[in-house]
């Protein structure tokens, strides 16, 4: 069974929310700017808790931010 991959719409959502900077998103989501950068680059998969916090910052559901691809 393959692991699949998780893609996200963080970069798009940041720009749709007044071109929010990575630093601002990081502070609101409770993580570091480097982690937001890593997420946008696809180099890191967040915990469920961080995924929910990021989605909450944008006021959307988790599945509007993250997508699981088989």
């Amino acid at each position: 069974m393959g692991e699949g991959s998780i893609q996200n719409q963080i970069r798009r959502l940041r720009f749709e929310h007044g071109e929010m900077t990575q630093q601002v998103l990081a502070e609101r989501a409770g993580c570091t700017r480097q982690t937001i950068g890593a997420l946008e680059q696809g180099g890191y998969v967040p915990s469920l808790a961080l995924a929910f916090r990021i989605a909450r910052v944008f006021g959307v559901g988790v599945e509007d931010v993250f997508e699981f691809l088989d």
Partner: protein
Amino acid sequence: MDFSTSSQTRIRAWLALVVWSVAGVGFVATFFAGGGPGGFAVDSTRHLAGAGALAFGFFGYWSVLWFTRQRRGAPPLTDERDAEIAARANQLTLVVVLVGVFSLAIGLWIAYEGSGQVPVGWMWFLAYGSVILASLTSPIAMLVMDGRTSGHG
């Protein structure tokens, strides 16, 4: 210290690498200079120099931790990704130190099998060397893993 471009994990890893590299070179130079392992056990000057190298490493690393500490009211400098990097780096460090100690022990056995006795100075090298190896491996592993999970590595 400016964390705007690099994470605390990355900055600490680079500084730790520098500090422990200096300590490691200092200890190895002390150990092999002036008679090598055979005379190390009875040479108090070299004992002191070796201990000084290790002390420099610990004090230097402690200084790195202090200067790069989380300031009150500042944004968080570490998060779950840093914790994951540290955990994986520690796992790798354990394996590297185990392999290093095992290799040195076997190497000494092979080298001194004929004479039937190992110069006791090598025990100092094993003790100090394992600390320095662990202290060097951890930041290297952190830098590699940080690079990989940043999406640029």
